[in-house]
Each structure stands twice: as C-alpha cells, then as structure tokens.
C-alpha cells in the first residue's frame, strides 16, 4: 500500500454558476521515501492537488488515502490533526510568524499536538540542528536571510516527524545559489528516508527529483521517470499503479 493513494479525485469550484474543474479525475500514488515533484504552469491545478494531498482541502469526488486514513470525508478537526502529525509544509514565502523567535516558530506545531514544554524545546533544538540553524534559535525571522528563514521553516515542518513533506515553490523567493542549497537539503532529507513532494513551475528544479508529475488543466499530463528504478529507493516498482500516459 502506497503512503498516499489518490483515486479519481476531482475538485470542482463554482464561480457564478460556472463550473471550474481545478482537478479532473486524478489518480496518483506516492510511495514511502519518494522524492517527487509536481510540475505545471500556474492555474494548472498543481496547487489544488497539493492542498488536497496536504489535507488543507477535501476533494469534490474521489478518494484520498494518506497513511491508511481516508481523508475525503474527514472533519475539519480531523484534518487539522492529520496536518499536525503527518504532514509538514514548506512555503515559498517561508510563512514564519514574525512576532516569535526561531525557536518558538519551530515549537509551534508541537503546541497544537500537546507536547509538554521541556520536550518541545528539546525537539525544536534537534530540528534546528538538522537544518544547521541552532545558533540562530533566539533570532527573529526578520533578522535572518531568506535561505535561513527557509531552513527554519523546514525545521518547523519536520519537528513533529511527519510522514510526508510538501514544499510549495520552496526556492521561488531565493537566489539560485541559496535555492540550490535548499534543494540539496531536501535531497539529503530524502536520503535519510523522508518522503518529499516538491511543487514547482520550474522544470529545472523538477529535474532534481527522480520522479516528476506534470499537471495541465487539472489532469496528469505526463509522468516522467528519468532516473533508474534503483535510485528512487524502491519507488519505481510501485509507480506503475497508475498507468503511464
């Protein structure tokens, strides 16, 4: 069983009586330990797909199974719990809370999962250690460079040890050098066994991932497996679950 299973997922918005199919009958499997990119131009539906995968939204039809939990008809409260424990988000604009310092930002998810104070701090420091930011623990986000902020955001995404990490244009607001460093951090995390989904419009960034899914007009346009099956940590065998187009 794959870590994430999407079956015939559609998302339909109504705008003034007009139906907009943001996602149209999408089926997709993501295996545990994969590094995968979802690529497509803006308006293609890749953000909608990420929102559904990331439990920020629920599909209009179809089923979504994340780590064995069917989420298509979960309540708001249950979705919040899944986001808290199973999913980490990294955003283009970092989305750190400006009034909190780095350590408090990283502690934030654990506040909502009820981790007691002492352990919260220990785990936050460990997560900052993993992204090499522990010496900036007392700084405010505004005192950090973009690359540093993104590292803190990654530490926050990882602190609750989620099953899957979603990165939405993680390098979109960084210069190419810093962006490269962040991407190599993702690669390193993937090598440590973390499942990571990169959402981007930039084919160059998508090129670093072993598996790419291209979205166009709400459908999966192509699945490109550039790498050898062995390199993708066993994911290649599972990916034929949905037929290649």
């Amino acid at each position, binding site marked *: 069983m794959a870590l994430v299973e999407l079956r015939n997922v559609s998302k339909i918005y109504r705008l003034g009586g007009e139906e907009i199919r943001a996602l149209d009958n999408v089926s997709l499997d993501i295996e545990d330990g994969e590094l995968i990119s979802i690529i497509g131009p803006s308006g293609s539906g890749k953000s909608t797909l990420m929102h559904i995968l990331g439990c*920020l939204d629920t599909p209009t039809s179809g089923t979504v199974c994340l780590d064995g939990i069917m989420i298509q008809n979960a309540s708001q409260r249950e979705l919040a719990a899944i*986001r808290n424990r199973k999913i980490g*988000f990294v955003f283009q604009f970092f989305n750190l*809370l400006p009034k909190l310092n780095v350590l408090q930002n990283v502690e*934030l998810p654990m*506040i909502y999962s009820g981790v007691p104070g002492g352990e919260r701090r220990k785990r936050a420091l460990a997560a900052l250690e993993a992204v090499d930011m522990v010496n900036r623990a007392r700084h405010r986000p505004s005192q950090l460079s973009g690359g540093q902020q993104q590292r803190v955001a990654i530490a926050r995404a990882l602190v609750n040890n989620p099953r899957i990490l979603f990165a939405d244009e993680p390098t979109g607001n960084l210069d190419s050098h810093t962006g490269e460093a962040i991407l190599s951090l993702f690669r390193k995390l993937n090598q440590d066994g973390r499942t990571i989904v990169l959402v981007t419009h930039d084919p160059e960034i998508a090129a670093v991932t072993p598996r790419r899914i291209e979205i166009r007009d709400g459908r999966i346009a192509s699945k490109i497996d550039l790498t050898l099956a062995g390199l993708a940590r066993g994911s290649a065998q599972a990916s034929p679950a949905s037929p290649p187009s």
Partner: protein
Amino acid sequence: MSSQSKDILIHSSAQFGPTLIAGLREIWAHKFRSLLTMLGIILGVSSLVAMSALVKGMEKGAKEALIAVGGLDKVRVEPQELPVEQRHLQDQAVGITMNDVTVIQNGAPLITRVSPEMRVPVTASANGKTFRTFMCMGVWPVALEMMEHEIEHGRMFNEIDDEMARSVCVIGTATRNELWGSPEEVGKEIVPVGETIYLNGVPFTIIGMFKHYESEQDRKTRELQAKQAINSPTNQPAQTGPQRNRGYSRTSGGWAFWIKNATIYMPLNTAYMKFRSGVSLTGFGPRSQSSSTPSGATGDPRLSSLELRIRDFDHLPEALQQVRNLLMSTHKGIEDFTFRTQEEWAEAINTFIHNARLSGGLIAGISLLVGGIGIMNIMLASISERVREIGIRKSVGASNGDIFFQILVESTVIAMLGGFLGLGTSFALVRLISTISPTGNAPIVTATAMLIAFGFSVCVGILAGLLPAFKAARLNPIQALRYE
C-alpha cells in the same frame, strides 16, 4: 496500522499555558492599543466600584442618622389638617393635649413610653450672642430616653423641676457652639452649666449639657484634626477652617445630628407657664393662626406633638391602632392627628439607596458594555490583520477550536487586565470623589462590589471575544495563507 493511524484523529487541543502566553505576547506587542482597549473596561469597573462605594457610604450615614433620631420603634403623633369630610368640625377639634398623654399611658399597653412635647421657637441669647433655634421644647424628663439623649455635663431636670416649673434648661453642643464657641474655635471645651441663658428674653439656668452627637465619619475626621492640631499647633488655624465644623448641610445624614445638637429642653410645665402664648407659633397644627391662647373643651394646653415608644416593633400596626382608638375618643371622633413612624423614613432611605444603586449600576453597566464593544472592535481589526498568521497556525495543525480559543483568551485577558487596573483606579476615583463631593459620608469600598465588577469585566471580555473568535476560527486555511 489503520487502528494506530486512526488514533491520530483524536486531536489533543493546544495547552492552555502556551495559548495564554501567546495572548499576553500579542497584547504586549501592541501596548498602547491594548491600553486604549482596556480603558473602557477600566472606567466601567472603577465607576461600578466607586458608585457602589458611594451608595454604601450614604446608606451607612443614613442608617446612623436614623438611629440618632431614636430608632424604628419610635412613633410621633402630630397634629394634622382635618380630612375633607370633617372640615366643618374644625372649631370642635381639640388638638393634642395632656389628656391624650394620660389616656395613652393608662389605656395602651402596647406603648411603653409617652413623651409630650411643647415646641417653643426661641431666640437664645447669652454671652453677648444670639442663636435662633426651633428645637427648643418643653418636655418631661422621660424625653431623655425617648430621644436617645445623653447628658454629659450637669444633670437633666427632674419631676420636681417640672412640677415647680423652674426656669432651668438643658442644651446641646450646637447651642453652646453658637453662643460660647466650639472647642475647635476656642481651643478648649466650654461647659456652660450654671450659666444663664435668655430664651425669648426669659432667663433660664443651664443645668446640663448633652454629649456631642455626630456620625462615626465626623468623629473620625474631628479626632484626626485634633491629632494633627496637637502635632503641629502652628498650623491649627489653617486646619480648622472657619466653617469646617458648622452647618448641617455638610453631610447628608448630618442634619439629623445637627438638629439633635441644637436641642434645648426645658420642663414642660415651665414651657407652659412662660411661653403659653407662644405655643400657637410652633407652626404645627391647622389652627395655629386662629387661636392665640390654648383653649379646648378640656382646657388642657395644646401640645405640639407626642413621642411614643412601641413595646415591640413587630406589633407596630396594632400599637398604632390602640393609640388611634384612644385618641379618636378623646378627640370626639375628629381626626386632627396623624402618626409619623421612622418606618417611613427607613422606607425612604431604602428606596433612595435602591434607586441610586440602580441608576449608578446602569451607568457603570453601560460603560462596561461600551468597553466590551471596544474590545470586540479591536479584536475584529486584530484578526483581519492577522489572517496570514491564522493560516500559518492552521497549516501546522491548529484546529478551528484552537484558533477560537486563542482569540477568546486574548480578549478575556484584555478584559481581565482592564478589570484589575479598574479595581486599582477605583480606589483613586473613590478618593477623588470623597474629596470633592459635598456629602461627608466616606465611600465604603466593599469586596463584594469589587468581585462583582471584576466578574462583569471577565464576562464582557468573553462575550466580546466570541464573535471575533468565531470569525477567526472559520477562516479557510488556503485563502488565509494566500492573504497579503
């Protein structure tokens, strides 16, 4: 795997501690704005406490005054305008006479004590000064107990003095102050016992003086001033201002004490003998203008009033009925008298206190409400500038309930801080009011009032936070994250 995974759906809410700290941090981040927001609550709470303290002070003053005039079990019989259907019998009305006193003493077991009063408005003069008082009256010695008077110097006149109609009198401190000067002015207490005082030109020997009656509040003030005067005698004239200790308008209950202090008592027979023609000038009774000499069917002198002491306050209506029955027979069925009970006064006090409390409470309540609206307004503004923060919190796993709780805690904390500051401010407000207000009844701040005011402020905070918290909790995380 699935059973283990499902456990995650039981979401544990955010702990209270971090949420509270987050709320305090948010308030601290906007110190000035938070203070302005609290201002409404501060004013509401402090005015609620101050108002209740004021009313409490007045209530205490009024109750003290009530006790000073003789308590609840005292009833006064006064002459009265005849009822319409008996107007034509006016010529036969006898008025209140000594005859009534005898009848009540013998025939009304529910009345323990009767004290006749003959009021003589006099101009008292002595020591080269004059003083007009309408509290001069001829009484029996029993009036001492009746009116809760206490002799501090000299003695009260007795039955023999009354029998012989001796020209003796007992005065109060107000009369002494007017004629000889108050201790504060003179520097020592003058006891004019043995002196001669002229009442409407008739010489009387002062044989006793009452103690000085005053409210607890006045006594404290006076003692404090006396103490200060001892500590710094050079400042004495400045501290005892010329009019400080005079005038009965100074305190709301103070006039009761002042009147009591201005009393001059002389034996009833003396009053009858010396001022017989003056009785009609007392201003009481319907026929005061028409008859210059007391003349009735019985030939008894007309009294200005009777004071009755009831055996048992619970039987007040029965006692009054007894007296009424007796008086109806002596007055030949003409109802030219009426009863005045302290109950009416007590009732009036209670009504006044109730009204003051209600209107004050209403005003304070409205200002608390305005404070609450202020909080709600600021919380609404605050969440609309924190949409992105709320989106971020939701993306890392805050449930709608967590966000709701966070906003609610913030508004409640603002209101509670405002409440605390308001309690502090209320003390300052009470001080301010008691220094500038003309009523000398010191406001009494009660713990109950403070508790109620604080409780109200917390409720207002919670109510004001509900709508903003609800709005914040319902934000869609996707849109909130995109919000610029």
